[in-house]
């Protein structure tokens, strides 16, 4: 029954006739809202770039957004705008000898960061390799869609890839509107209200880390995370780019929390800390383990270190 319903309505792929029907409505939702009495639509249309807003403007925008999100998701929202902590440069370590390819990080990330469930958006891609197969600089033999009964699969190993938070981020350089930039703590962020959706950054990223909202993002109301940051996990819009922010809403705190992927990892393969703090775990592993970074030849200088603890 439910399957029938599905094929008749929602889940039906768009056919020629279907979208022809939907077009009148499509023209009506045309970008610039004409004839609406709701002032907030115009306020959001003329909203300034995040870095150009005054304190007062920012407060106003946050208030408006909290209201919009609350209406949409039926729960009260908190949108922080916490700036970078002083003397902080975030770095990440991933222990390849421990990773078992369980993808718990992938889904913890989706939940924490309010990614769209339909269409599905994941920030972390876990690549599976056959042992002895080529990897590191040629990822062609990797399998992103592995689906065995149980992981780790015999004779295989895993390499999760997400935003490498490059020191020289190619994505930032190419953005035509400065909608994406690097924060003082090294996190590359996107202003979801400034991005025009040209996707130049996606073409520029060597790590396949950026995601586009091809459709209207859908998050079930009961699963939405209302504790958000403007530059992080607040719900996104159709037609904009998003990416991993090292869970900016969690890590920018004193004391901060670990990113969701670090916290969930059942084997402790994920490490996170302040690269400027000589006593941090991330510094320890860089100084004592054999680390490597992905695609060094491109000179992007990631702050994401792969290593082998054992």
């Amino acid at each position: 029954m439910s399957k029938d319903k599905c094929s008749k309505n929602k889940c039906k792929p768009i056919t020629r006739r279907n979208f022809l029907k939907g077009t009148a409505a499509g023209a009506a939702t045309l970008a610039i809202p004409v004839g609406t009495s709701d002032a907030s639509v115009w306020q959001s249309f003329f909203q300034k770039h995040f870095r150009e807003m005054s304190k007062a403007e920012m407060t106003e925008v946050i208030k408006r957004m909290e209201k919009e999100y609350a209406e949409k998701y039926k729960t009260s929202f908190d949108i922080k705008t916490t700036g970078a902590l002083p003397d902080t440069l975030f770095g990440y370590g991933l222990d390849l000898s421990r990773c078992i390819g369980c993808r718990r990080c992938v889904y913890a990330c989706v939940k924490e960061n309010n990614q769209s469930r339909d269409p599905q958006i994941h920030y972390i891609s876990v690549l599976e390799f056959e042992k002895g197969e080529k990897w590191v600089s040629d990822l062609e033999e990797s399998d992103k869609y592995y689906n065995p009964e149980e992981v780790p699969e015999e004779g295989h190993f895993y390499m999760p890839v997400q935003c490498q938070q490059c020191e020289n981020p190619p994505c930032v350089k190419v953005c035509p509107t400065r909608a994406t930039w690097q924060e003082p703590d090294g996190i590359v962020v996107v202003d979801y209200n400034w991005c025009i959706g040209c996707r130049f950054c996606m073409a520029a990223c060597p790590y396949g880390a950026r995601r586009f909202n091809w459709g209207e993002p859908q998050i079930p109301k009961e699963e939405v995370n209302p504790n958000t940051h403007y530059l992080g996990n607040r719900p996104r819009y159709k037609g904009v780019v998003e990416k991993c922010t090292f869970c900016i809403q969690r890590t920018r705190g004193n004391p901060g929390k670990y990113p969701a992927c670090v916290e969930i990892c059942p084997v402790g393969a994920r490490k996170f800390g302040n690269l400027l703090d000589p006593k941090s775990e991330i510094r320890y592993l860089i100084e004592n383990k054999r680390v490597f970074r992905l695609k060094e030849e491109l000179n992007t200088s990631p702050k994401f270190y792969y290593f082998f603890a054992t």
Partner: protein
Amino acid sequence: MYPIKNFIIVLKQITVGNKLYYAWLSFLGLLIFIGAVSYGAQLKNGLIVTAMRDQVSWGFYISNFTFLVGVAAAAVLLVVPAYVYNFKPIKEIVLFGELLAVAAISMCIMFVVIDMGRIDRLWHVIPFVGKMNFPASLLAWDIIVLNGYLAINLFISLYALYQMAHNREYSLKIIMPLIILSIPWAVSIHTVTAFLFNGLSARPFWNASILAPRFLAGAFCSGPAVMLIIFQIIRKVSKVEIDNKAIFKIAELVAYAMGINLFLLAAEFFKEFYSGSIHLAPMKYLYFGLHGHNTLVPWMWTAMIFNITAFFLFLRPQTRENLFTLNIACVLIIIGVYIEKGMGLTIPGFVPGTLGEIYEYAPTFVEKSVTVGVWATGALIYTLLLKFAIPIYTGELRFYTRETKL
């Protein structure tokens, strides 16, 4: 009163025509309507109605954009012999080339705009009003050079027409510096568009220094080929006389451009296949298929065969100077370059992806119909421009002036 009268003259000129004219306009109107309907669906549902995904994040729209930049840039191939070398037969028709550039650039801009996720935020890229990332982003450069090229060509052609419509000679003092400027500017729109792809170290297929030269060589084949066909249509349906000498001269230039284009392709083939590094993958995907994925293979070989055949047809004076074989060559070269500089250039940048994934892209019905709609809009723009430009050019249409007795 006379400016209003003149406006009415122009309005009448573009709205009144024979049956064939109305049939053509209705045909374009229908295609534009279908495109608009599809675009409505895209606005409503998002770009999910296209086949583009995170793996292949640019597709058919950007492919058409790159091809059309080439068509627009090719106006310069008429300007150079016409003005710099004072080759008279071409000089007489350079106006139609400039108007074609106007139509082509308009299409380019439409293709980039329909590819955007948030058209409502278009104002974010406007200099001073928005927050344009100049000079770091090549897209910012592209916005400047494309709009600049549009402005230059519009100004030159409209100014010349305006003067002609008043029975006045156009002043070379005003127009010559702009014509000279339009030559490097035409090269720049293509170079900047090539650099857009070229500067991305993440995509080895694009990150080859041969890209911009290949782009230009391809442009100088397809653009003039389009013009050669249009010129023949113009002289058939109007009183405009276009000398065969001009047509054959342009055809000769196409032969050289295609020779260079094929040479550059061969250079790229050699480098990739002989060294055989992992960067060979996109090339292999294009021409032989990769791990059983081979959507583009038949297209690429079609392009190759068409381009080589057209090259010889353009090269031999006997076939170049025979309108029948010349037209075959033009059609072959347009299709060949459209495949090679369109999908054949955009898609292999994304396949295999940066994490080695192979996503086979093929445009959806929505993408195809929106694309057809944009082409039809471009054709409509060009038709309307020609409809009032031609009678002015032939002297059949003149404007009222202060001196005219009303």
